[in-house]
């Protein structure tokens, strides 16, 4: 084989970019669809709610929150006699939550199956404490929960929350960072898979095989080209979650950006790899349930890994988004540094990339026969 040639890599990258550039719909896909999706997710996560059935139990606390809650028009308030009564009604699905007014403590019971509503309720309870006026007319959970749950109780009663149904849910803020990774992964994967498939169906792949360019150069060229594409996407999605939905960015935005880029690169090689198993573009679409959906469900985008049954969890650890989700959450929500996410997250993503990259190059070689 010929030596590694940067110019040939550049030629492939330039070509990929030229092709994408000319494909108007794909440009739209790259820039606007992520925004659209993020907006959709954003509002789904943080949308204002109304008509929420909320139980109130007076247990001698006489805290000011109770009268505040009385004034919130989004709630249908139902006064109940005891905490156990409230719990039963939540389990029955009649209530979305209940606030118990105890001396020195506000206890909030929340329906864990509807986290958005649970967060909205929490936000109101917290708002009632600080007298924060912006919360009065409907709450945007995405941003409100942040200062709500990570509360600063300087005075007034302690707020305790208890989820009915098992586990404690993470705040919806935590979905934001993960969704960024998911969106970038999804589009890059599909586009890379189709692009690679076309190389084969157009016969250009066969011409590559008979040219001085080797597979390493070809796949590298693709990576460079698609990184640019992932670059644009990472930037737009990140900007949308941070500025439109107020998901915090506690850590270094550049490292968050690079992490998203890394997941884009992983998606590119994974797309290239899977394209070997497809004969038509229709078959590429069939990879969505196979490759994308497990990552939506099993990598902790919506609910924590801990809530996934243990016998399935090993699969989670084989999926790249598990690591990017964790890394992005650590970066954006907890202000982690690059050292904090290096192991296992970045190392795992790096290993995953190398493994699939090597497999792809080998695969192309064999597939031609």
């Amino acid at each position, binding site marked *: 084989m010929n030596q590694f*040639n940067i110019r040939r890599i550049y030629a492939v990258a*330039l070509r990929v970019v030229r092709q994408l550039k000319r494909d108007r719909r794909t440009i739209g896909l790259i820039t606007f669809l992520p925004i659209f999706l993020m907006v959709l997710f954003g509002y789904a996560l943080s949308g204002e709610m109304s008509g929420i059935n909320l139980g109130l139990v007076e247990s001698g606390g006489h805290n000011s929150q109770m009268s505040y809650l009385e004034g919130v028009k989004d709630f249908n308030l139902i006064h109940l006699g005891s905490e156990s009564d409230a719990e039963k009604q939540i389990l029955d699905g009649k209530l979305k939550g209940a606030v118990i007014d105890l001396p020195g403590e506000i206890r909030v019971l929340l329906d864990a199956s509807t986290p958005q509503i649970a967060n909205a309720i929490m936000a109101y309870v917290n708002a009632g404490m600080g007298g924060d006026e912006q919360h009065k007319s409907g709450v945007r959970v995405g941003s409100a929960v942040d200062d709500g749950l990570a509360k600063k109780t300087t005075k007034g009663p302690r707020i305790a929350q208890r989820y009915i149904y098992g586990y404690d849910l993470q705040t919806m803020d935590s979905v934001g960072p993960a969704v960024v990774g998911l969106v970038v992964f999804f589009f890059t994967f599909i586009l890379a898979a189709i692009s690679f498939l076309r190389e084969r169906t157009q016969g250009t792949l066969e011409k590559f095989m008979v040219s001085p360019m080797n597979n390493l150069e070809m796949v590298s060229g693709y990576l460079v080209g698609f990184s640019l594409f992932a670059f644009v996407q990472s930037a737009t999605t990140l900007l949308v979650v941070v500025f439109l939905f107020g998901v915090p960015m506690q850590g270094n935005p550049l490292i968050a950006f690079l992490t998203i880029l890394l997941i884009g690169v992983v998606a590119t090689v994974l797309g290239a790899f899977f394209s070997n198993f497809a004969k038509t573009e229709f078959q590429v679409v069939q990879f969505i349930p196979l490759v994308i959906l497990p990552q939506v469900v099993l990598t902790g985008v919506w609910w924590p890994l801990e809530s996934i049954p243990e016998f399935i969890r090993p699969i989670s650890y084989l999926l790249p988004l598990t690591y990017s989700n964790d890394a992005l959450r650590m970066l954006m929500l907890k202000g982690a540094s690059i050292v904090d996410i290096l192991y296992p997250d970045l190392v795992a993503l790096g290993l995953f990339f190398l493994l699939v990259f090597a497999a792809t190059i080998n695969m192309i070689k064999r597939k031609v026969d």
Partner: protein
Amino acid sequence: MGDYAVVAKGVAKSFGKLKVLTDLSLLIPKGSTYCLLGPNGSGKTTFIRAIVGLLRLDGGELYVLGQPVAKVSEVYSRIGYMTQHKALYPDLTLQENMEFYAALYGVEGKKRSDKISELLGWVDLDEHRNRLAGNLSGGMYQRLSLACTLIHEPDLLLLDEPTVGVDPKLRQAFWEYFNLLNAKGVTILITTHLMDEAEQCKVVAYMRGGKMRAEGSPEEIKRIAGLRPLLKLWAKDPELAASRLGTGGFDVRLIGERELQINLDDHSQIKDVLELVKPIDLRLVEPSLGDAFLKLAEAQDA
């Protein structure tokens, strides 16, 4: 070995149970135009793919430009390979397609722009160079594909049905260019269904069922098939002429009232015929290569 661009000895390849190439042997001299002819599924494309190392052979030996086929990648920069797929990017312009292939082969700078202009001019697409390749007609697409294949001035040109969808006038231009390349020492291996194209080649190989059935110049192939030139002749006294020719040892028949048909062994016999009879008119009918292949196929089926 040094005189041949491609040497195949007993090459065999099967896909599962299907034997595509069985004991195929041939020599392609450097600087020749070698044509692989044969019906669909006869193994022509498979053989070309074997030459460029895209297939693992089941048996036999194969050398390409002096290299055993296992090391053919070392001479990739000297091979131009045009597949039946056009291998172009419809969403790039003609110019961009050519630039891309030029870059793959390290053709850069002024040489690149000169070569692109030269080739686009030759395939008559220069005025379209900024159009998207996807908007071209089938024949234009084919021409662009050929131009891309030639961008790096290969020594060995492998053309798998290069003139499909190209109109006769341009097809002629293609062949003029092939001859020009040939004169520069480029070896051309071409597959085709078209007999008139095969006639232009120095060597024609007839493949069938993965085997070489006949090989030689178009004239030799016709002879192998038992086809000879036919002389049609009209004389004042056809019966007298027929008997004279008959005694002269010619294979002659009287057709209708006046027409004589004489099967010639070769063209030099025309002179002998004219010494025996003075015709009013005569016409030489050459057997076509197509007839030869039909006859060969029939003989092999029988």
